[in-house]
């Protein structure tokens, strides 16, 4: 098996990608925090993944799961119809960045292991 193209490394890359996409969704919400009638958007990926994992699907099937963006209709809106909560967005942004750093660290350590394997030959 090619160690660079395992299901796990593909999963890790799609988690990195979803995290980068979520940062953009949050940026759109923060930019529209004062736009009347704007509904905040959310990116769903990890929950979908978790659900698929709990159903015991194969890692190949997991790689086919794509992130999706939807409007948050549950969070109550202010008088102007906007439901962006700045504190919520800023903490989501921080949390998202930490996840991004974690995924990139995992990816880098995988690469380091492969590199070490190549060099010890």
């Amino acid at each position, binding site marked *: 098996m090619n160690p660079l193209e395992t299901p796990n490394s593909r999963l890790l*890359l799609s988690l990195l*990608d979803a995290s*980068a*996409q979520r*940062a*953009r*969704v*949050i*940026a*759109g*919400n*923060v*930019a*529209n*925090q*004062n*736009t*009347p009638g*704007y509904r905040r*958007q959310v990116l769903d990926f990890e929950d979908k993944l978790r659900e698929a994992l709990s159903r015991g699907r194969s890692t190949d099937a997991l790689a086919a799961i794509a992130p*999706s*963006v*939807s409007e948050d209709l549950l969070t109550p809106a202010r008088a102007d119809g906007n439901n962006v909560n*700045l504190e919520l*967005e*800023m903490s989501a*942004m*921080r949390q998202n*960045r930490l996840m*991004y*750093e974690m995924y*990139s660290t995992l*990816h*880098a350590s995988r*690469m380091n292991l492969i590199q070490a394997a190549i060099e010890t030959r």
Partner: protein
Amino acid sequence: MDGIKSFFSGFRAAASGLSAERARVDVIARNIANAQTTHTPDGGPYRREVLRFAPILERLGDGTTRTLGVQVTGVERDAETPFERIHDPDHPDADAEGFVLMPNVNTAREMADLITAMRAYEANASVQENFVQMAERALRMAQ
């Protein structure tokens, strides 16, 4: 996999937020500057300006929309807030009974809006900072 172009689209979303909030601060500054202007070329006192914001949306193939940022779609005059009528017979714009119509600018309200705009500006600036840190992190993966 998303390319570098879309990575920076979030950066641009925050930039659009920065310029929209700056436009709001400009409008607030004009309103406060004209809080005592009783005579305009259109006749009557100054009417406060308000900005209209709208999201920049991109419609995706699957019918969902994605927010790319915010834009100022127009500057309007506030026709709802009434002018204040004060008694000042010495004023050059006073009517026969000595009453003057003052602009519908409420300085306290403008100052409150100014603080909101400044906080929103700061939030957009820290979103940009967040993208810088993520990009640096992504670059370090390649080392």
